């Protein structure tokens, strides 16, 4: 064997090796060629608003959000696990993961806005933008806290910490109340931010200020039983800052009569197998009060009767369904109201809070409890398009019932419950807090089994086990019957 040959082999190898280490184009080659690494935050804002509505508005989907059934606005005649208060694991998982997904998009937007130099803050509407983003974040956090109680908060939304600890519901509430309150103090009340990329208010800063204050009020009132001091403090700030004053101010996502941009509930009926129907809780109450919203919400059955199904009962579809003309369609054609707006929050709800605040006392609210109560009732009737004669009749009757009621809170809660129709997420929270109207127990299931929270996501048991087990133990067990922090009654 000649050394020369060995050397030449070795040499060629080294040369080839050298060639191979030329990997300078590798990084470019490996880049995603279809999807951008950076986008303008306004695209994320539109996405977060839309996805939040998808999650909140469709509150009768057994796999995503079931609060419209839990609060007993709606019942089911088939696949009755939901009306038997059996909540699917997929829902426990997805309601949470969808919320955090919105929040991470909002967080990225907030981080970018916060980079705006103070010198340019006024010109670039820095704090006005932050009011909007903080308001949406607070809204989303409240839905998490109201559903699960504890959840990761202080360590959440951090790509480097994949086992965040859980914070209590109180910590989430106080954190968000403070953040929203702080930014509201710094922001002006006029101008336009993000324009048509804001699909709720088209960028109107004045509207966002009202919505943000209304959210602050909502969160403050939710903790009125457990932490009156903070409740008063934040509610007063909200009222002073200016909350919703008419249905014109309502925070809505106005769905479009364009295929694919329909109201998600309509969409669910259109593509799935509707098994939802009117609940006896709702129909009985509407009948009792001769409520003109009956025929707006519901269609009579084939026999011309309004029938609500009980809970935990399956059966033939001889019940009342949503009214095709004004609500969702339950058939397969497209005659229903595909563009029924999704409601984030409305003026009626604000008035009911103000009525409550007067009764509780200590809040800076002008006017009587009754006047705010009746304003709420009237706003709801008007929103749903009840004729002015019927509005007057019903408001008068409500006033009579109010005067006669021994427990004013109960009648406020009951009227509010009707007014929150299609806002299942909020209605479920308020039913738990105000304990009215009375819920019906499913056949064969005790009323004590009423779900007052969602169990933690099964995903956390797999991927964040130590923290979720600790959180479960701190709240007294991960059961759907364990009451939340603010739910002391």
């Amino acid at each position, binding site marked *: *064997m000649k050394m020369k040959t060995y050397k030449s*082999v070795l040499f*060629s190898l080294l040369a*080839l090796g050298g*060639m*191979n*280490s030329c*990997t300078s*184009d590798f*990084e470019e*080659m*490996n880049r*995603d*060629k*279809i*999807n*951008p*690494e*950076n*986008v303008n935050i306004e*695209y994320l804002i539109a*996405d977060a608003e*839309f*996805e939040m509505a998808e999650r909140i508005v469709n509150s009768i989907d057994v796999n995503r959000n079931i609060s419209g059934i839990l609060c007993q606005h709606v019942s089911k005649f088939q696949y009755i*696990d939901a009306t038997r208060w059996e909540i699917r694991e997929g829902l426990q998982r997805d309601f949470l*993961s969808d919320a*955090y*997904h919105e*929040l*991470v998009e909002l*967080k990225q937007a907030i981080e970018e806005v916060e980079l705006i130099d103070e010198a340019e803050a006024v010109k670039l509407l820095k704090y006005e933008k932050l009011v909007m983003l903080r308001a949406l974040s607070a809204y989303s956090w409240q839905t998490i806290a109201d559903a699960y109680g504890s959840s*990761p908060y202080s*360590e959440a*939304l951090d*790509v480097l910490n*994949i*086992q*965040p600890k859980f914070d209590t519901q109180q910590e989430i509430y106080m954190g968000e109340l403070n953040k929203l309150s702080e930014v509201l103090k710094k922001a002006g009340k006029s101008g336009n931010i993000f324009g*048509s990329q804001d*699909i709720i208010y088209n960028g109107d800063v004045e509207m966002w200020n009202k919505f943000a204050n209304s959210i602050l009020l909502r969160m403050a009132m939710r903790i009125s039983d457990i932490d009156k001091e903070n409740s008063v403090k934040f509610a007063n700030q909200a009222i002073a800052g200016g909350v919703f004053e008419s249905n014109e101010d309502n925070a809505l996502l106005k769905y479009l009569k*364009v*295929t*694919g*941009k329909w109201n998600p509930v309509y969409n669910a009926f259109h*593509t799935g*197998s509707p098994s939802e129907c009117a609940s006896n809780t709702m129909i009985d109450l509407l009948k009792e009060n001769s409520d003109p919203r009956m025929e707006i919400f519901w269609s009579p059955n084939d026999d011309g009767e309004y029938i609500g199904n009980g809970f935990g009962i399956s059966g*033939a579809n001889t019940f009342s369904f949503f009214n095709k003309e004004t609500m969702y369609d339950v058939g*397969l054609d497209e005659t229903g109201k595909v563009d029924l707006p999704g409601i984030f929050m409305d003026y009626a709800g604000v008035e009911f809070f103000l009525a409550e605040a007067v009764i509780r006392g200590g809040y800076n609210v002008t006017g009587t409890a009754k006047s705010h109560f009746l304003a709420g009732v009237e706003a709801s009737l008007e929103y749903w398009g009840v004729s002015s004669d019927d509005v007057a009749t019903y408001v008068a009757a409500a006033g009579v019932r109010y005067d006669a009621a021994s427990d004013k809170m109960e009648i406020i809660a009951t009227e509010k419950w009707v007014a929150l129709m299609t806002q299942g997420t909020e209605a479920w929270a308020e039913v738990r807090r105000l304990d009215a109207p009375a819920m019906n127990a499913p056949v064969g299931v005790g009323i004590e089994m009423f779900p007052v929270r969602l169990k933690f*996501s*099964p*995903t*956390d*048991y*797999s*991927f*964040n*086990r130590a923290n979720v087990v600790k959180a479960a133990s701190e709240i*007294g*067990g*991960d059961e759907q019957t364990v009451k939340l922090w603010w739910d002391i009654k």
Partner: protein
Amino acid sequence: MKKKLILMDLGFNNAYIRKILTVMRITFLLCVLGVMQVAAANSYSQEARISLDVREKAVSDVLREIEEKSEFFFLYNNKLIDVDRVVDVDVKNKSITKVLDLLFADNVQRDISDRQIVLSPAVQQDESLRKGTVLSADDGLGLPGVSVVIKGTTVGTSTDIDGAFTIKAEKGDILIFSFMGMVSQEFTVVDTKPIEISLRSDALQMEEVVVTALGISRDKKSLGYAVTKVDGDEITKTKAVNLTSSLNGRVAGVNISSSAGFGGSSNIVIRGGSSISGNNQALFVIDGVAISNTSITGKNTLRGGYEGGYDYGNFASDINPEDVESVSVLKGASATALYGARGANGVVIITTKKGKSRKGMGVSVSSSVNFETINKKTLPNYQNDYGAGYWDNFDTHTTPEGVDQKVVMMYDDASWGPKFDPNLMVRHWDSWDPSDPENYGKTRAWVAPDNMDEFFETGVLWVNSVALDGGSEKGNYRLSYTNTDQKGTMPNQSLKKNNLNFNGNFNLTEKLSIQVNSQYNRTESKGRPGLGYSSTNSLSFMGSMMWHQRNLDFKRLKNYQTASGEQKTWNRASASDPTPVYWDNPYWTRAKNYQNDLRNRIVGSVALNYKISSWLSASMKATTDHFDFLNEERIAKGGKGISDYTKQIRTETEDNFQVNLNIDKRFDEDFHLTGLVGIAQRNNEYIGSTISTVGGLVVDNVYSIANSKSKEIAHEGWKQEQRVNSVFGSFSLGYKNFLYLDLTGRNDWSSTLPSGNNSFFYPSVSTSFVFSELTDLSFLNYGKLRLNWAQVGNDTGISRLRNVYYANGSFGNATKYEASNTINNPELKPELTTSYEIGLDLSLFQNRVGLDFSYYNKKSKDQIIGASIPSATGYNYKYLNSGEIENKGVEIGLKLVPIKTKDFTWNMNLNWSKNVSEVLSLAPGVDDYVLNSNGAKVIARVGEEFGIITGTDYVRDENGNKLIADGRYVKSSPGEIIGKATPDWIGGISNSFTYKGFTLSSLISVHWGGDIYSYTEKYGRMSGVLAETAGLNELGNEKRDAIADGGGVLLQGMNAMWSDSDQAYVSDGTANTTRTTAEKFHSWSNPDAEFMVDGTYVKLRELSLSYRFPKTFFGNLPVQDVSVSLIGRNLATLYKKSDHFDPEVVNGVGVGGLEGGSLPSKRTIGCSLKFNF
């Protein structure tokens, strides 16, 4: 003469072509008849008698006259043979041999083969030249390439294409004849007579030469790692369409599961799953070309999940089994280290058939037909006592005449309804269509026809193939064409495959040779079955049958539309409303909502080899694998789902370029060094898009994107590139044919990893010690000990380093982009797998017993996983370098020849393997990694076996009794271990009995243990269609009767009570005596553990009887080597524990462990015919 013209070119005349065509045409007829009445005859040359009377004619004229008077024809070169010589011939009734003796002296050699006579100049006579022929004892044909060496010297030669040889040898010299796979023979030269040697094949030594990494052929005894070789004949024996599935049960340590879907996937996992990230599929290499084994299956399809979908198969199924010469399965990292990253899961090396050196051209033809029927025993086991509804009730319809009729609860997709009663007449779903007067308004008996199996048809599979081959010392070629035509077992189902394959090998000069391989495949299919559950569009037949009514008559369902084309489903909303409530009529689905797909694929390679010196050569190879794939999926208007048209187009290309230097040097008698060093580059490109209509179709029956209701169509596109640069080297040093040392090394640079971390090195060392060479034990024919160690790296998927945003459509004037669901990671490191293996090969008792034993251990660390992370991060997945997984196992292969006589041989082959894995650690902060989920999850969890199944379990007391509360089993929190997806062990037993020309062979494969979470069982029980929801309880009463009447089910276990101190249910110390209604018990609020099924099965996978006609049988017909076979696949499941589905079945390529809507498995019976010219 035109006859001669063709003869000179190709070696056969056009009469032969006609015959080929005729034979091809009658091929199948022959096969079906199975008998061929052809008189046995001696060959033409021995029988033919010639009379000639010619004067003063040139030899060429005499030859022409013989051709005219007989069927003989001559082949010669008139520059070498003197045919101008003038002769006189006068013979009567003489054989051709005699006539030729008169015409030519000894200097002309006459080779007579049947009708063909080749004239060539005879080799110069030499006193010491010995001539001879080596024949194969199996078929009596000449054996080319046999080594002939004079014992004790290096003097030698090898036989030519006819098996002939000439060697200079003295009297008394001993000649050694040896050939791979044959028993060597010695012959002592005594005189100058031509020597005739016939070599017998050695059953056990057949595998001596195996193809190893990078296509290097190696003597098996020199290998320090396990390689299993399977012959092409074995694979094509029963004509499975997908090559992967025909390896099932044949190779120890290889776990294969197959889809029952049409043209669906086969899953191949070698030595357990080591890659957490999901792809544990072995790499397929065909003639040195690494080919894509992409598997296109919706994620949900894998899960048997909600949306269902189609299984488009694993694309290694493009390999045409008919072209396969042999398959080598490389199992350990040492065997595959030269493949770099992609070898980590094992490599299946496929060598295609090559042209043989021969005279003229060989033609081989094979043809088979198979009939497929479903195995009814793999359909769910249904109850036949109760029909539609949720309780004991019918609707009522009053006719215009005022008669009340009972109406089936058509809108309910469950069978908790009234008990069947043949005397009860009711209105069924098909009695409401006025355009069908035969059934309109009529009532029928309330019974269970129990005829779901009639939905399935008899499938027919034709495989026809023809191959031409030839060769000389200049080179060889093989060209083949195979046509596969399949009609499926479901309505409207077909698959057509055309494979064209060319292999050529030519010596351009003495030193330079070129090899060209190319394949073109075209696969077209229509009507693949929908899999999984797919409740939104009811595409999956078995998915829809989890929810049905036992009163359905499948004969009647065929009537799926009205005269005007509207759907008629059994699940109509009401008497007046024919809208499907949950499910379409399955015949409507098959006819209207079909998919189709088309794949064109080219695989090719060109290699140049240059011999630099006797021990050094250089080679260069360029390969490409490219396919384009189109699929179209439809949902028609008028059904359950939103009408839809979805089209996917994708192309994948892989190009490889490789240059290496090869060394093969003997230093002296004792040392032999072989090796190579080289560089390589691999480029992959993936481009594709999926486009769907949104919101439905505007015009019925028009399937185009332009027909979308929404103009904002759904689109997903991708364009990805990857490059890997490599340097590698491999050296093998042999000492005295008994001790071998192999060293390999490879370094890869991958574009998918971050720049500081993109280089990784894989070394391997292996040794082989053939100890039988050192002993003289009479019973030990062969014994080898092998030992190896290797480290293999791996890169990651494309574009996993930087986060991106995804376009998410618009809303009004707003444009939406969403944050990804997955956090990419710029700090990924390469994965690393370290393994060692110890093995023993033994061959005993005159090679009647063979043992192949391996123990292996492999540890994979830093695996890159898309870990599920808590959603509180804002994301659901993150790419991370994970911890460590260990796989260890034992593989045993046993070959026995229990009986071997002159005419009768019994060969037996057993293999058994067991793999045990443990997840040693995962990434920091990751407790579980989900491999697959649908209700229950298949996961990797630290400290547990890889692929455990978790979900909610029963809660038990300290004695193991289940706790019961409120008439139900108490459920644990999710995440408890309730099973494992991997088998305890797998094995196979194959037997073959050969008696003269007859061969009977069978293959049984065993898959022992492993669990499956069954949606079929969960939903089927919930809907009351499965057998266990009806029948008698332990009191002998109907389970479905009211509890007050002694009905219901008694759950075995202890009553539970809530303990505040334990924050859990505990036993109250009393046994449950409260009965639960059947409906409540079978609801889905049961723990997931209730739906776990044992995955064990023992299957008679193959059974075939073939007959090979003796050479003399066809006499003067040109056909040779004719064999006919009767074949059967999956004839019987000998043992299984699942009541409602075939446990082997998977939906697509995945980890298994979850089942939902499995199709019944198919039985195949057929026959095949093979022959050559």
